[in-house]
């Protein structure tokens, strides 16, 4: 299950009435929104939204019925077991990592970024960058991990030769196991004009 779908589930499951609605769905063959709303003393729109969301997420099925004055939907459970299985490894940047590590970078001229060392340590503890334009400009402070701090400490100066990310990591003594977090901070700083890519 991807993260976004799991998050949607989380939003609806956290509702106070979620368990009660599911209890009705398990015990009834099928049920309409108005029947569930009246049974649980809830507003019909609230129940309708919940049932529609669960249908779109594949937990319920609905069929249109034509009774009385106008057609309406009846909802029934498609599955009686729901498990949220999220593979966090899918969030890892694995698309051609070697290619990303061979990007040549250096600090951008006049970026205005302010790097702070943790007193006498040979790495940065944080970097402050400017976001926005003119009067809306705001400062954003990013706290760095030690590998990120060491990496940025060895980032080539604005007038120095470009170096690949891998070369800078080697110079800084940062293990390749930290390459995802290094690529993450490079991407962020590139976005805000602190790092220039050749």
């Amino acid at each position: 299950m991807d993260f976004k779908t799991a998050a949607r589930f989380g939003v609806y499951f956290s509702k106070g009435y979620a368990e009660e609605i599911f209890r009705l769905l398990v015990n009834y063959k099928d049920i309409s929104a108005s029947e569930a709303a009246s049974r649980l003393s809830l507003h019909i729109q609230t129940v309708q939204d919940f049932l529609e969301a669960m249908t779109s997420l594949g937990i319920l099925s609905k069929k249109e019925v034509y009774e009385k004055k106008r057609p309406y939907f009846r909802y029934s459970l498609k599955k009686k077991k729901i498990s949220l299985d999220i593979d966090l490894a899918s969030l890892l940047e694995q698309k051609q990592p070697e290619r990303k590590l061979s990007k040549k970078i250096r600090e951008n001229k006049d970026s205005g970024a302010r790097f702070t060392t943790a007193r006498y340590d040979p790495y940065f503890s944080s970097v402050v960058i400017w976001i926005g334009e003119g009067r809306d400009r705001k400062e954003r402070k990013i706290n760095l991990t030690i590998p990120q701090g060491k990496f940025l400490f060895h980032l080539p100066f604005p007038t120095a030769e470009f170096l690949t990310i891998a070369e800078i990591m080697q110079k800084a003594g940062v293990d390749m196991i930290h390459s995802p977090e290094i690529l993450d901070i490079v991407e962020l700083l590139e976005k805000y004009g602190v790092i220039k890519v050749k």
Partner: protein
Amino acid sequence: MISRSKLRGPIGRIGPYAAAVFISLGLIEAIITGKPPYSAFAFGCFFIVLGIIEYQRTKLITYLILGLLWGTGTWHSMARFIVSFLSLETYIPHVIVALAALVLTWPVFYGNEKLESNARKLFNLAAEHVHEAFNGFTDRPYSGCKTEYTRDEISGFARFMGGKKIVKSIVQPDIVILSFSMGISPLKEPDLQQISYISFDNDGNISVHISEYDYKRFKEELTFDQLCASLGDVFVRFLEYYKKGLESRIIVELKSGAK
């Protein structure tokens, strides 16, 4: 060929010229009017303004105190001609207080002047080998150098450089930092980001940081990474001299940086 400094001159250099101008004006005023209160007033203002400017630059209260005492002392010397309750009997104690202040603050005053003068020499030596001016300033430390030394050698080097008031040394278990500045005095122990420094860790790694104020003292925007590398080379060379027992060569080479 005379090599000219790539640095802008220190503001204190106008002191002797200003003194000559005000004394000349005082003599002219005395010849014309019989007494020079206006020249003395202007001269006093000069001392006070200079004291304020130097205090704002170095953050050392010494300059402000001395500027105020000498400035008001100069006013006092002529004020007895204008204000009746001031006389030679009130002027002499003022002079004694001003001299006492100078004596008491001399270690700080002299120490800072020496540190600043040597900082200028260090930057001049570094700038000699930088011929491009593509700016590229960043307030990050430059890490590019690596050399070999033992813990004892680097500590001894730091003590030597600090003792000769070439730099202000900070010796920590993991790192040795030699600080110098043409702006905020290292004697104030400011945040390292505000001054220039070179650091030596226990693995032989060297980092160079040039503050924005010091960089702006150059007449041209010298290519920053080259300037940092050159400054690092100066200190590596000085360290080699020290390791070989050739400390006197450090002093001689430093003097060549005086422009």
